[in-house]
């Protein structure tokens, strides 16, 4: 199959859906001629014009309001917040308005938008340009949260998200933008709410999100050489979560390592741990649940410090190896 980068997969989804559905448009800072801070929307303004690829002032809350109001009145906007860190400026509209409108209005309205948020560290951009805030949005009833880890998933999930009738926070992984993988040319969707077993194994389950999926797979590869067979589960959609698949996997392996980049405390790992500890998988657990996550600190500028602030392959290997002890 043809290969695309994660970034190109996202762009292709936007492009195909804009061709198919005149209600879809893109709005955000520098999404036009600049092509977006990371180049995701490059070329789109040439095809669709400034009416549908809309550059905005530096007004994140305004962007959130614009997509909310447009979605409420018949459009299907795709907004972009240049860095997920700046959703902090837009979050009133996302949380108090977009997420709640349908419920508050007694089910008489829909707010079908997607908000794309490049997230994560690893680019040397320091504390205000590196955050992973997905669990904030997971915590908000009325929002859906998607976090693709491969080019294939990115395209399929974005198409599904745009077609979904709810506001969807689409968390893109900056570090994955250039990674490549097979992506069908045709239109396809990856349904929201379906997790994916990225690698099957029997000794231990790793549930990893976003950029950590690739690291977990690399770790699994190494561990396989030691005879430890790791199953890597990627939720893909954080909300609604495919709890069933995770519970099944953990029930099978009896051990679970949860890996995410976001700061440990108060993060999505807690939700995953709780879902497992509450479920029938609890009875199959042979060892405590282990979370491996970003340290509880802002992302530092210094390269070495930054590297050691979030889980790396070697940390996953070590944690998984320790957890698998006694098993193999």
């Amino acid at each position: 199959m043809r290969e695309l980068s994660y970034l190109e997969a996202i762009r292709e989804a936007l492009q195909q859906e804009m061709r198919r559905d005149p209600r879809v448009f893109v709005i955000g800072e520098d999404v036009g001629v600049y092509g977006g801070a990371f180049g995701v929307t490059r070329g789109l303004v040439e095809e669709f014009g400034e009416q549908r690829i809309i550059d905005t002032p530096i007004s994140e809350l305004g962007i959130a309001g614009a997509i909310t109001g447009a979605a409420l009145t018949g459009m299907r906007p795709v907004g972009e917040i240049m860095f997920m860190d700046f959703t902090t400026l837009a979050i009133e509209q996302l949380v108090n308005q977009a997420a709640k409108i349908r419920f508050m209005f007694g089910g008489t309205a829909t707010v079908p938008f997607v908000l794309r948020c490049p997230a994560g560290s690893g680019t040397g951009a320091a504390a205000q340009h590196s955050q992973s805030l997905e669990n904030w949005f997971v915590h908000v009833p009325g929002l859906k949260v998607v976090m693709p880890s491969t080019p294939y998933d990115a395209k399929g999930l974005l198409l599904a998200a745009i077609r979904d009738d709810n506001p969807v926070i689409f968390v893109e992984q900056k570090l994955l933008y250039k990674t490549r993988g097979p992506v069908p040319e045709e239109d396809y969707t990856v349904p929201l709410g379906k997790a994916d077993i990225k690698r099957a194994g029997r000794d231990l389950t790793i549930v990893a999100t976003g950029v950590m999926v690739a690291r977990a797979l690399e770790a699994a590869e190494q561990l396989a050489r030691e005879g430890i067979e790791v199953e890597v589960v990627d939720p893909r959609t954080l909300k609604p979560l495919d709890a069933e698949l995770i519970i099944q996997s953990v029930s099978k392996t009896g051990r679970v390592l949860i890996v995410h980049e976001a700061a440990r405390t108060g993060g999505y790992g807690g939700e995953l741990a709780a879902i497992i500890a509450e479920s029938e998988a609890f009875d199959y657990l042979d060892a405590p649940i282990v979370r491996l996550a970003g340290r509880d600190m802002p992302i530092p500028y210094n390269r070495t410090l930054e590297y050691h602030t979030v889980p790396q392959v070697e940390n996953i290997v070590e944690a998984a190896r320790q957890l698998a002890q006694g098993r193999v």
Partner: protein
Amino acid sequence: MTLTPERQRDLLRQMWLIRAFEEKAENLYAQGKIHGTMHLSIGMEASAVGAVAALQPDDYILSTHRGHGHCIAKGADLDRMMAEFMGKETGYCRGRGGSMHIADVAGGNLGANGVVAGGIPIAVGVGLSQKMQGTGRVCLCFFGDGAANSGPFHEALNMAAIWTLPVVFVCENNQYAMSYPASKAFAIPRISDRAAGYGMPGETVDGNDLNAVYAAVSRAVERARAGEGPSLVENVTYRWRGHSKSDANRYRSREEIEAWKEKDPIARFERWLAQAISLSEPDARAVEQAAYAAIEAAVAFADASPEPDLAAIEEGVYA
């Protein structure tokens, strides 16, 4: 832009409906039949009615926490409104929203808002979507003096201006944001002076004069519909009641309130109608009484309506 006598009579009727609705709501609250909180616009009726009168039926409005007047002016069904206040299944929001969240999307009312300035950025999106779809519709966005000092106001007015969106921003300056007087909250005399900073027209009118409001908003609506972009209209008015149900009015004097009651926008419009279309006193009282009667009917409807079904509690979170 001139209103027919029938239309003028109807605007009087709307003002009385608002007054009657809110007096009744206040009353029901005291009786414990309505709970939570509510923000009454008694004394501000001309602002709501005069502004919405400038719209076509299929235009949109975005309203505020003090939104009963806007809602009624936009043609809300009083039964469903009252049912919503009582948290009934037949209410506009199936009892989920209450006073601060009444919306009538089909009728072009995109919702009251519990967040000050919460609707202003949404107006940008509504305007954008009208422009993109070429509907010719206008979006009228209400907010208070307090809202004009919030960041969202700024971002939204600028975006609407640079994209020449069909939006009319109507600031209902009732001179207080809760207890905080506009005289302290602004270092400028007129909020409409801010329009210049966005490159849009700004106008301040006597918000208790329905005709003045109607004229100013009509100009703004025409401009918006003609594709010339947004405007800011400031209606200077006053709320007679406390900010919400928990206000002890410690921040203003009884004299001030009384002085503003003298400027009752309904009485004023009646006096004007007496001249302009020779509305007789009995006619005026008939309008008033009909309004109070309509509200009683709405209460009866709401009273007779069922509570939401507990089994359906989680309905409507997602589409």
